[in-house]
């Protein structure tokens, strides 16, 4: 399988001394939907800016389609598409004009560009609104138009930097469906950064979890969750007049003897166990407890989430409020004094 992205020991230290990337390494294969999951400020955007040739690395190597991003920037730019959290469309131009403008900057043939524009407007359900200014579009429509502009030249690799941030659940699901279609139907390789667990879980074939500039895990979402030991089953028991602690201890002993149970522990008045294929495990669990004369009062079955994975590796839940490094500019002294300056990029 061809590798379209190869990153080795990549470091980025900004002028203000902040070390955004601490020597990360990973590969992305052709046709893969690869995710970079991490909280705000983890280093996701810095990585993507380096890969799309907008930012230089301090050390290490980053190659796209086998070419060094620093040495072959123009070639790489003609091969990749990009859509970010900030919608990069011109609000005064119409949807169609935005697409044509973007295509003209790739020097696409006029007839080809006209056809491709129509095709993308159709794909993104924007044909009916193609002649309206982009500024009059809803948030979801603007995002779809932005995605379409990143696809105008039929890139072989699409970079998406937090593409659904700020969208409502319905529009987010719509964007996901489009991305899945592009990946499955067209075989488009997609590199996605996100801090949404559900997004990473649903879309990505493989995930790198990044925190504080380091990759702490890299595997498929299923494999990452499987590392946690399976589904979690939590039980409480009906009072039968016996001592509650003794009852829980007896249940723990019964459940611990079952071969498909990975672990059993008592936690805050409950018995909590992990089991592969939790749904299938429930009947034998209930049967074993019934045979031992223990009645179950309450039972919950939960599958592990990527948040649990993040918790396992970092000791904390994924956070969404960390500061973000303002990668492109550091404000000038006069701007800081005046309280001006562009908002921080997230």
């Amino acid at each position: 399988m061809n590798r379209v992205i190869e990153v080795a020991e990549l470091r980025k230290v900004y002028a203000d001394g902040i070390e955004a990337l601490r020597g990360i390494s990973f590969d992305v294969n052709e046709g893969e939907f690869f995710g970079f999951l991490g909280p705000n400020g983890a280093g996701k955007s810095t990585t993507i800016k380096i890969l799309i040739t907008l930012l230089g690395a301090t050390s290490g190597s980053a190659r796209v389609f086998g070419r060094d991003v620093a040495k072959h920037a123009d070639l790489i730019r003609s091969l990749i598409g990009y859509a970010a959290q900030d919608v990069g469309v011109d609000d005064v131009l119409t949807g169609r004009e935005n697409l044509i403008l973007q295509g003209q900057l790739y020097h696409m043939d006029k007839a080809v560009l006209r056809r491709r524009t129509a095709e993308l407007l159709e794909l993104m359900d924007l044909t009916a609104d193609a002649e309206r200014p982009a500024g009059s579009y809803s948030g979801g429509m603007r995002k779809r138009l932005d995605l379409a502009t990143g696809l105008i030249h039929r890139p072989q690799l699409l970079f998406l930097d937090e593409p659904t941030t700020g969208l409502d659940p319905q529009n987010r699901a719509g964007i996901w469906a489009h991305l899945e279609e592009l990946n499955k139907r067209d075989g488009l390789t997609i590199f996605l950064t996100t801090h949404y667990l559900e997004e990473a879980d649903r879309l990505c074939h493989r995930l790198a979890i990044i925190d504080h500039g380091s990759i702490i895990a890299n595997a498929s979402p299923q494999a990452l969750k499987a590392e946690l030991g399976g589904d979690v089953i939590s039980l409480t028991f009906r009072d039968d007049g016996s001592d509650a602690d003794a009852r829980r201890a007896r249940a723990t002993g019964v459940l611990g003897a079952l071969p498909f149970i990975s672990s059993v522990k008592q936690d805050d008045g409950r018995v909590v166990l992990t089991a592969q294929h939790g749904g299938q495990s429930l009947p034998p669990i209930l049967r074993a407890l019934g045979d031992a004369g223990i009645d179950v009062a309450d039972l919950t079955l939960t599958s592990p989430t990527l948040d649990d994975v993040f918790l396992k590796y970092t000791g904390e839940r994924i956070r969404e409020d960390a500061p973000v490094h303002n990668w492109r500019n550091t404000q000038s002294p006069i701007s800081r004094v005046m309280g001006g300056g562009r908002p921080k990029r997230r």
Partner: protein
Amino acid sequence: MTTVTEPDPVPHEIASLVTNEALPRGAAKLASETYVLYVRQLKRLSRQATVIFFSLVQPLIWLVLFGQMFGRIARLPGAAASFGNVSYLQFFIPTVILQSILFGSGQSGVAIITDIDSGFLDKLLTTPINRLAILAGRLLGDLTRITVQMVLVVIIGYIFGFWQDPQISFHYGIPGILAALLIAMMFAITLMALNVYIALWTRSTEATFIVSNFLTLPLLFTSSAQLPIELLPGWMQAIAHVNPVTYTIDAMRVLLNGPDSVHGKSAGLVVVEALGILIGLGSVTLALATSRFRSAVS
């Protein structure tokens, strides 16, 4: 709307693009990309009715208000010669043109910040575009807007001039007007580039406006824009003699109103001085803006 139903409508063309062979090279690439972004600017301008309205009406209001307010000054005993023996309105036409440039050129810087903040610049930068095309397209678009303003001021000024005493007459006719507008365009480019530099330095639309206005008004009032230089207080005259606005406006007056507009220098010298100063200053501000822009996008 027709839908493209063919399974893979653009493989060959894109394949050639992918190999990077379809891209034009060097100056042709820069010119083509600059043109694309210039057209974007014109489309944006043509659809922003408020911008068009105020860009065109504001200089006309200045022309009417200032022309009326100071109209009698040019007719005061002994003052007529200082004004070049023309009506104040005619004296004031180059001033309105420069005021439009001074106040309108800030837009160049602000628009670049807006493109950065909106994410549009990043979108452009992920294409194989020559980075200078972004700056050139912006400056040419704004120059077009300002040139339309200038032409309108000359036309309206000429029409108002029928009711003036003496009536407006352009000394060198159409060639003189075109030459004066060329000088004004050089001044506009100089100032737009300065504003781009300020904007990229401050990274803030608010700060750009404040710094730009901080420079604009003193430049205007310590020059021969409002009054002939000999009618200014002594200390202002000293500043006016080193103010590039004075040299620009004097050259425009000579080209529009004739050689009597400026005293103590030949018309040729006035124009040559202005050209020299504007070429020098323009080169500096363009170099500063380009350098700042290059570092901002690299």
